[in-house]
């Protein structure tokens, strides 16, 4: 099953850092996501795009994960040669990950 079947997501940008939220539709799925979608997995998944560290924040209040990926926007949103300079489409890729 792909994450898209049980989650939604949005990407934000600051400089060369991209953050991707992962929000389960059903909060009951949150513990399972915590267990299965680790920072290491996300770093490996985006290995061609994210050149720096990936930090995962667990946001227990709203039952969501927040992945902060360093060196992920081609040198920074204002100077990147990448077409999607903000990395807006990265959330759609994360949701294609197999659980």
């Amino acid at each position, binding site marked *: 099953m792909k994450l898209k079947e049980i989650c*939604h997501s*949005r990407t934000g940008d600051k400089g060369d850092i991209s*953050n991707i*939220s992962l929000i389960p539709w059903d909060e009951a799925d949150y513990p399972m996501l915590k267990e299965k979608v680790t920072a290491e997995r996300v770093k490996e998944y*985006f290995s061609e795009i994210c050149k720096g560290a990936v930090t995962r924040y667990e946001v227990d*209040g*709203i039952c969501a994960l927040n992945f902060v990926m360093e060196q992920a926007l081609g040198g920074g949103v204002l100077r990147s*040669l990448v077409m999607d300079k903000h990395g807006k*489409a990265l959330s759609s890729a994360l949701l294609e990950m197999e659980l």
Partner: protein
Amino acid sequence: MKKVRIGGGAGFAGDRVDPAVTLIEKGKLDYIIFECLAERTIGLARQEMLADPTKGYSRLLEYRLSQVLKPAKEHGVKIITNMGAVNPRAAVAKAMEIAREQGITGLKFAAVTGDDVFDTLDQHWEDPILEFPGKVGDWKDRIVSANAYVDASGIIEALKNGADVVITGRVSDPTLTLAPLCYEYGWTLENADQIGQCVLAGHLLECGGQVTGGYYADPGYKEVEDLDNLGFPLVEFDETGRFFLTKVEGTGGLVSVDTCKEQMLYEIHNPAAYLTPDCIADFSKVRFTQEGKDRVSAWGATSHGLPQTLKVNVCYRDSFITDCEISYGGCNALERARLAGDMFLKRLDRLGVEYTETRVDYIGYNSLYKDKLAAYLSDGRWGEVRLHVAVRTEDRANAVKVSNEGDSIYTNGPTGGGGATMRISEIISVFSYFVPRESVIQQVTYEVI
């Protein structure tokens, strides 16, 4: 219990204007905010101000205010905006001119300044740059602007002195919302929970329609009604600091727990320590509850004191980027696009073009996710592919050489290329450093019509 209602009238400089007019006319608002200042806009605005001292504010200020000033006056809604960019006083002068033309009287305008720290840059040449290795002084010949993200004190002073329209420069985005709430309720840092709730509300409002169903729809997964009539958000506070977020009845869009969750984490790193000039906000314990159709309550944000430093954004002349594109169709489209891309890079070297970075993408195949994820997501068939070559150069002369080469792909490249485009962009980038907060002093000036 005292209620305060604030609308989010814009999420970026070029945002739609009609949803803001709807908010003013039907939202029973006390305030409307317009967040219109992107990081690099400051650099462009300062270049405009140097060329013409009456300019340097948001390019769309005139159009936006010409649409909203009159309804705001009629409905008693105060306006708070960062559309002043690097020249809030010139922005107020323009706003006065618009009011005069439209026959509006009885308005007090305030310009909040002091965020511009360009004149003190030379005290910081040895300071480290936050985003990449190096010192501020390494870029001294290329810097075009330096502005600190300032706190709510200037806006609060303006409201205390009776301003109806407050125009600022580089305040932090959530400050536009936090300031009127602190003014209305008298909250200070000692009200840690209320201050945290103010930042949360400001953060949810600052991108306009992104919390009311904009940037959310995904047919078959996430349905949103009437995006063409997307309603912009408003929050209603009470004196406990609890608020609910909603939109004007009859507008399109969606306000749900999930739209709020997505926007809460947008551009946030550590949700327990979101640094703003007004406080270190903590969203880690926030809870949203659906209270009705398109109506969500928020509770649980808090704050942990004041950062001792303010962030200064420096805009500098970085480089030039030339983007060239051309499309190929048919079952061998990707191979022809690859041939054209390889040829292009060889031509740059053959011509002796001086460049510092290149990137070749095949739009429709790998331009968003590069090769590994593209292969994972694709079934291996492309009916059409668009070549994109981006080249960074230090100057415009070399950029022009790149652009000319893009044009020549047509007749010199693979068969069947179509729709070639070339674009040269001068890149203004941003880096940051920190200054002691007491070194930045805000001023407020007023005009009355």
